[in-house]
Structures are given as structure tokens and as C-alpha cells.
């Protein structure tokens, strides 16, 4: 059984620390080239390899990541 996930990042509150990029086992999070209102390169989901493990949300110091997951 596999899982498919999707993360939603509150980009206005993201500080672009990059811990979620490091924590993601599937390497589907990257820091954006764009900046948010505070001038940080916020993180964003890329590709569709997310498995909804919530590792990114676990290490996020600012709690900006919400994780959604479905069986498929």
C-alpha cells in the first residue's frame, strides 16, 4: 500500500531556514527563488513524490506546514 501526500506551506510565515528541505526523505521540497513579505526564500513543494510522512512538518520551527495524505 502506498500513500500519496501533499503539503501546504504558509509562505507568509515561512522563514526559509531550509530544515524541511533537509528532512524530506523524498527530496521534493526546495527553497523558492522568490521571496515572501519578510524577504525570506520560502520553501515550496516540487514534484509529486510526496508520501505524506510529515517529517518536514515535524522539524519546522515555525509550524507553517500542513500535511495531507491519502491511500492509493
Amino acid at each position, binding site marked *: 500500500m502506498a500513500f*500519496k*501526500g*501533499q503539503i*501546504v506551506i504558509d509562505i507568509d*510565515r515561512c*522563514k*526559509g*531556514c*531550509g*530544515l524541511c*528541505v*533537509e*528532512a524530506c526523505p523524498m527530496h521534493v521540497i526546495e527553497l523558492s527563488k522568490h521571496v515572501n513579505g519578510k524577504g*525570506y526564500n520560502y520553501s515550496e*513543494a*516540487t*514534484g*509529486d513524490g*510526496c508520501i*505524506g*510522512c*510529515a*517529517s*518536514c*512538518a*515535524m*522539524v*519546522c*520551527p*515555525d*509550524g*507553517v*506546514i*500542513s*500535511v*495531507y*495524505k*491519502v491511500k492509493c
Partner: protein
Amino acid sequence: MANLDIVKPENLVYTKTKVLTDATMHYCPGCGHGTAHRIVAEVIDEMGIQDQTIGIAPVGCSVLAYNYFDVDFEEAAHGRAPALATAAKRLNPDLFVFTYQGDGDLAAIGTAETIHACNRGENITMIFINNGIYGMTGGQMAPTTLIGMKSQTTPRGRNIERNGYPLRITELLATLPGTYFVSRQSVHTAAAVRKAKAAIRQGFENQKLKKGVSFIEICSSCNSGWKMTPVQANKWMEENMFPNYPIGDIKVDGKLVESVDINRIVVDHPLSVVK
């Protein structure tokens, strides 16, 4: 790319707990305080004790903790959080009381309050964030600074002859009869965060038993104070802090864990250099 059909309320597996307010935290990007706040808040949420909890905020980086937790909070004078927690718990024995302190607050100016509260066996939970430095004031040497570690006041590294040894206050407190549960955890990886959360949950559950202090140290990185990126700081912490501050339970159910050598101190560990 985005699977927007997955983003539905019934598929939500993780989001920020409501016990944290929506205020943007003032901590530097990548600071362990944010994660530590979040797991404490999640434990309060999961136990359903939001309206029965009193937190005590310290002085230091986490001085504004009361802005981020949606629970009752008191602000203590520098280092005096255990004294205030003692009063709060004795006046409200049925409420859950926790202190949240950094190493400059708990292990330096507040050492006396910390040791005596633990020695009296107050029925409180103490959360101790150890980043080996005075973060808020700009990265000066703290009692917990590692041997050889550079800081603003030890630019050539901490020297034993001049500055003494790092204070391992968690091991010290574990030897006191008043502590019931003592643990050292970290928040640098997802697995470590889950373990730290379990330890904090244990600490809060122990208050129901009324058997003494539950003390949880959380090793955290201070990337601005250490002059590294958040990812580098976490790696540096793993390589250099954990030999001196090993992760794991130190005292469980009032008994020291046998495999832990509480007298161990590492004086010749060469610190790695970040490139």
C-alpha cells in the same frame, strides 16, 4: 505537480496545533525554540489540559513565550521560573505547571532556584533548552559552552584553565532525590522531535503522580550565535554537543538509568570546523 484534490479536511494528517497562537515567532530562522514550543503545545493539546495549564516564561530568547502559547502564563524574573512554578503549583495543586527556560536562565543565574526546586521535589515539569551559548545577548559563553567552543567572550575557544568545565546540570539534577524523571532530548530531526515529544508527554503525565520534578533538557542549535546555517548548526550539534551531552533518559521513575555514566565528561573531544 500539486495534488490539490488531496488537500481536503478529511485527509489532513498534520497541522499546527491550536494551543499555539497565530503570532509569528520572533526566533531566528531554524531556531530549536520554535520546535520545542510546538511539541510542548501539542502535548498540552493531546492531553486536553489547555485550560488547566500554567506556563512560566523565563528571561532569554524565549522571554516572549507567553505570546505564542494560548495557555495561562507568568513571566518570571531572570532565573526564577522554578520559584514561581513552586508557588503556582502549591496554590493550584490540580493544575499542570511547567517552566520553559534556556541555559543562561536555568543553568547560570537561576542555578540556586533550579537546584532547590528539584531538591524539594516540587511536582512540576521543567523544560530546559540547552544551546551552549547566551543566544539573546549575542552569543557569549554560557556555563554549558563546550570546551574549545568559540563564543563572543571566548574568541579562541573555551579554555578549562580560565573558564572551567561545561556544566552538565541535567546529570547534576538527576542525582537529587527530588527529581522523578530526567531526560535529555533533541529537536534536530523528525525522529528526535517525536522522541522529545514523548519525553515531554511523560513529564506532564508525571504531574498526576505527585512524585517530584520531571526535567526534560532539549539540546538545540543556535545557528545565529554559532555563526552557521540552520542545517550546518544541526550537524555541528550532532558531532560536537552529543558526545558531551548524550541524548536519552537519565532517570526514569525515580531511578537512575544504569547504562548512563553521570560522571562522564569529555575534555579532549576536538570540535569540528564548519566550512
